[in-house]
């Protein structure tokens, strides 16, 4: 039941061509060390699912810049001009979803469900008529036009947790929670990095954000400069 492993063998399980969910909204919650190891090992043709593209030189931006990413599924990549440039030049395929819809599509996979019905963006260019159903959602006589959003699955999730135990129970903090608990539920194999790895029993049961049943592997990592304040924002 001890899920702690070395980073090299953990990341080596990810093959080229894999679909990988990556936690984080901007820097907070981004698993920088796991991503650096993925960069080092050389897997390519990746499909990444992350809210954003990080900022140039950080996190998944490094993988994009090294031509290792075919497709990025995201909500907004405005803080990464290089990724926008690659998208515009056709080097990087990007699929955008509204941020909460992206979150919910991931959660839907994590909940073992197949899709959900939403009215977000239904009258905008992001919706195709083929995605619409008419359904009676309440006791009113008329049916309502709704968009079917399907679950978003992944082979792997790379997660940054503030604290973890050896069973794989996870606690996040601050705005570094974001997509991490959702992706930890959704992906088939869930690899977690943390600075703070403890013995089971260290956390009060109702404060655990991700229960261990969802987690495959926990890697202990060191605090490196990427996790510290980004000087250009201070």
């Amino acid at each position, binding site marked *: 039941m001890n899920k702690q492993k070395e980073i090299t063998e953990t990341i080596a399980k990810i093959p080229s061509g894999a679909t990988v969910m990556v936690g984080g909204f901007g820097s907070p919650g981004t698993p920088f060390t796991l991503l650096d190891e993925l960069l080092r090992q050389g897997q390519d043709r990746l499909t990444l699912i992350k809210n954003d593209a990080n900022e140039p030189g950080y996190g998944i931006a490094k993988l994009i810049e090294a031509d290792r990413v075919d497709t990025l599924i995201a909500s907004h990549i405005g803080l990464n001009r290089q990724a926008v440039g690659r998208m515009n030049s056709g080097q990087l395929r990007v699929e955008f979803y509204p*941020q909460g819809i992206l979150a919910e599509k991931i959660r839907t996979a994590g909940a073992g469900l197949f899709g959900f019905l939403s009215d977000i963006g239904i009258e905008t260019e992001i919706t195709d008529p083929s995605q619409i159903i008419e359904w009676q959602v309440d006791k009113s006589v008329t049916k309502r036009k709704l968009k079917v959003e399907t679950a978003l699955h992944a082979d792997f999730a790379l997660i940054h947790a503030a604290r973890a135990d050896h069973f794989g129970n996870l606690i996040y903090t*601050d*705005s570094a929670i974001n997509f991490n608990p959702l992706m930890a539920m959704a992906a088939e194999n869930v690899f977690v990095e943390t600075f703070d790895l403890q013995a089971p029993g260290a956390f009060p049961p109702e404060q655990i954000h991700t229960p261990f049943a969802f987690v495959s592997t926990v890697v202990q990592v060191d605090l490196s400069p990427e996790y510290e304040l980004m000087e250009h924002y201070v």
Partner: protein
Amino acid sequence: MSKPERPVRTERILLRAAQEIKSGLVINLGIGLPTLVPDYLPDDFDALIHSENGILGCGPIAKRAQARASLIDAAGHYVTLRSGSSCFDSSVSFSMIRRGRIDLCMLGAFEVDQSGNLANWKIPGKLSPGIGGAMELAQKAKRLIVLSTHTDKHGRPKILERCRLPLTAPVCVNRIITDEAVIDVTPDGLLVQEIAENISAEELQNHTEANLIFPKTNLTGTSGVRRFK
């Protein structure tokens, strides 16, 4: 609150926008002008700011010594947390939005039109960095106020008869605050509520593509319309 020097047009929008923020309202402030509004609130103001990356109860922008690397708002600023704040995952954050628990949202605009349609996420062929939280905020906030300069940097109107850019959401805007006027979207059209003190009603209409309605008066008069600095 101390704040950096800003252009007069910007200051005027932000000062007026700050008046919209009432105690006890849960507020979301979009990237751009809206995130600057808290600089124009009293220091002791009881604002309840939601940031869609997963915070309810954002405090002021963090000074260097306070900043935590794990704590940014949706605009990417290091922020502080006020007493009674909470942090949560993105599905809870957008549940709060879609469930209608955001009382007031302020967003920037590329274009806004007389039906209350908003375009602020994409300029085809020029700018399409993604959707972010804008669609859900625009569609679901209980009250949506657009903050924008009245005209773009080339002097062209941003308040149109009908948006030409891809919409963020249709019929979602309640009020538009610019450096020239405060305008409400009503079933009858765009109703001017306030005009900046340095501008005439005629000038305002000339800077606006959509027809404006001036209360109790005609296009050249301004009685019944409050003046603001």
